[in-house]
């Protein structure tokens, strides 16, 4: 029915858990958006979150780097551990956490700055480069990883907003990568892109897996099948099923999962 995961290799070591969530509840004022979610996200793995619109995928994703803190009415309960450390602990600075857990958004949102300054933004803030040469190197490396170097190397001083949609999204990925995060969260990163740009970003995600743990929210089940090793299916705020991507797509345990991937709900 779906292509077997071709880019993704399915052998992952089970014992390197990067993020572990237990009993997570999220409320927007009175709306209970996430209910009792338990999940273990592995290091150096691409994990896909799938599910119908409004089921809470983005909300849960934003819990992992505490982006929900910027929404006044949002309340998060439960435990989310990053490398065994509770990220909602009072001693954890969300700003530092976000440097470790990068995020790429649904709509490309380059800053109104030059391409170079967009990529250099994170390294400058976190003092990752000691000299200008260091910074140049980080920028080049990040742009190369985002497969944007060849297109952008001659126009580094031009505004990032002048790029095409697909290029902008790759710029945002380069920007996130430049901060040297350990986890990369991507909320429907391809939904505003054309098929060619999508293919480039998917290839990129597979490469990023060498170093990071990647969590990607996607509406496209083909995309989930192509890029991820693990898949989590959300429905109405519940985590219905979580397992090997191949398993979920070929042999789902829950009938809601089956209905969704065969197109009956969603």
């Amino acid at each position, binding site marked *: 029915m779906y292509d077997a995961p071709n880019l993704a290799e399915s052998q992952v070591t089970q014992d390197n858990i990067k993020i572990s969530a237990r009993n997570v509840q999220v409320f927007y004022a009175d709306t209970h958006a996430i209910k009792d979610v338990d999940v273990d996200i592995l290091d150096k793995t691409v994990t896909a979150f799938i599910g119908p619109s409004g089921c809470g995928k983005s909300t849960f994703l934003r819990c992992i*780097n505490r982006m929900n803190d910027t929404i006044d009415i949002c309340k998060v309960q439960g435990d989310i551990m990053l490398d065994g450390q509770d990220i909602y602990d009072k001693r954890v600075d969300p700003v530092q956490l976000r440097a470790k857990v990068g*995020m790429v*958004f649904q709509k490309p949102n380059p800053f109104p700055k030059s391409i170079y300054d967009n990529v250099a933004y994170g390294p400058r*803030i976190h003092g990752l480069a000691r000299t200008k040469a260091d910074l140049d190197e980080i920028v080049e490396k990040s742009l190369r990883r985002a497969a944007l170097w060849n297109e952008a190397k001659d126009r580094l001083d031009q505004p990032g907003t002048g790029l095409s949609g697909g290029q902008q999204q790759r710029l945002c990925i380069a920007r996130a990568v430049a901060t040297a995060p350990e986890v990369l969260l991507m909320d429907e990163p391809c939904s505003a892109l054309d098929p060619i740009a999508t293919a480039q970003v998917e290839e990129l995600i597979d490469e990023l897996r060498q170093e990071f743990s990647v969590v990607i929210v996607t509406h496209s089940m083909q995309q989930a099948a192509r890029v991820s090793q693990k898949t989590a299916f959300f429905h109405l705020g519940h985590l219905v099923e979580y397992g090997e991507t191949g398993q979920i797509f070929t042999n789902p345990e829950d009938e809601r999962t089956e209905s969704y991937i065969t197109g009956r709900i969603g």
Partner: protein
Amino acid sequence: MPLIWLIVIVLAIAVAGYVLGRSRVMAATGGDSRKLHSLPSYYGYNVALKVVLPSFFLLLVWLLVQPVIVNGTVAADIPQSAIPEGSSRDLIMSEVRRTAEGLDNAVAQGIMTEDFATNARSDLNDVTQRLKDAGQIVTAQVTQPILQAAQRYRIMNDTGNLILSLLVILVAAAGAAWSLREMRPEFRARNVVERVVKGVLVAAASVAILTTLGIVLSLVFNTIEFFRLYPAGDFFFGTAWSPSFTGRGGSSELGVLPLLWGTFYISIVALLVAVPVGLFAAIYLSEYASPRVRSFAKPMLEVLAGIPTIVYGLFALLTVGPLLVAVFGKDGLGWMQAGTAVMTAGLVMGVMLIPFVSSLSDDIINAVPQAMRDGSYGLGATKSETIRQVVLPAALPGIVGAILLAASRAIGETMIVVLGAGAAARLSLNPFEAMTTVTAKIVSQLTGDADFASPEALVAFALGMTLFVITLGLNIFALYIVRKYREQYE
């Protein structure tokens, strides 16, 4: 017939036309509005508009033209002998108008009959006495030529008004009849109404533009007149401002430089106060304040913008000036002679400008998309890093625009300067000395018994023109900046 009645009648015809026009097309289709080209109400509006627009246009033009014609005719008929020594035709005419008005009121009060008022052979003493009895202001004995002219004036106006009423009602009725004949189902009533709406909007826009044009033209002519009497070089490059008050002689020095310097010095002090405070207030309000704080702090700040500048002037004169003297004056640092100084006016003007800067900047900062902030937070930036490096650069063109707008206000401000900075035109660097600005001098040159043909009075127009050109330049510059940055950021 009073004007209000005329207007009411025309409106009544319009309403009747609306109802008739609507029902007429409905009847033509047997009550099925789907067979009409437009919605039924458009047919009604169509009739009403064709009643109202031409008749009100006629009314407006007539009301503007009639007084000119009547005045002219009556004035021309006053014999030269009736104008006393040292008086003029204009003065006699105002006497005539006063008398005519007095007669009107006296008739209205029943002190004299209409016949008596119009009788050319009435006894002058009697008329004067009766007018006085009626409580009308009559400067002196009403003379025969004045009484005659006044009577003529009344008759012409009455006839004019009567013809006007008849014509307006006729035009309204004709409009109704003509447009009702057009009301067939296939008539494109909606398109006509659309065109009329557009026309009305265009007319409104033209009023604004034409007024500006009129202002500029009046300035230009008087400025040219001034430069005929006073050399332009001395005006633009003269470093002294000392108009002579008594003589109409050529002893005045009218150099604009001290005034421009005062204007810029005070404006710069004002902007140094208003820009940082206003901008920081805007950043606090839009980025840090909780909705509750924001909901009362923002209106509070905007109240500042509603305070009349004369009140700020009083504040400068009574509070800020003495306060500064206490610190920097003889008893303090000894830099300041009196309360009126560049510093006093500049500080108070700065306070006045805070809400302009903050309110505009707040709107602009709020318009920066949340996605920008999210992007920055997502990379581990703190709030102030995000504001400094992402939000403010994105909002910069708008903020620059807000600052230049505030600068325009500062340059044009008068009352605070008059009360806070003094009246001495001076080229000095000391901010604790009294100085004055272009606007304050425009006022002082035109108030009092100014002779409008002297360079001392006409210089006000040259000053106004200079100011106009400067603020225009500033605004064009602001637009240019905003455009340039917008291209870069969008």
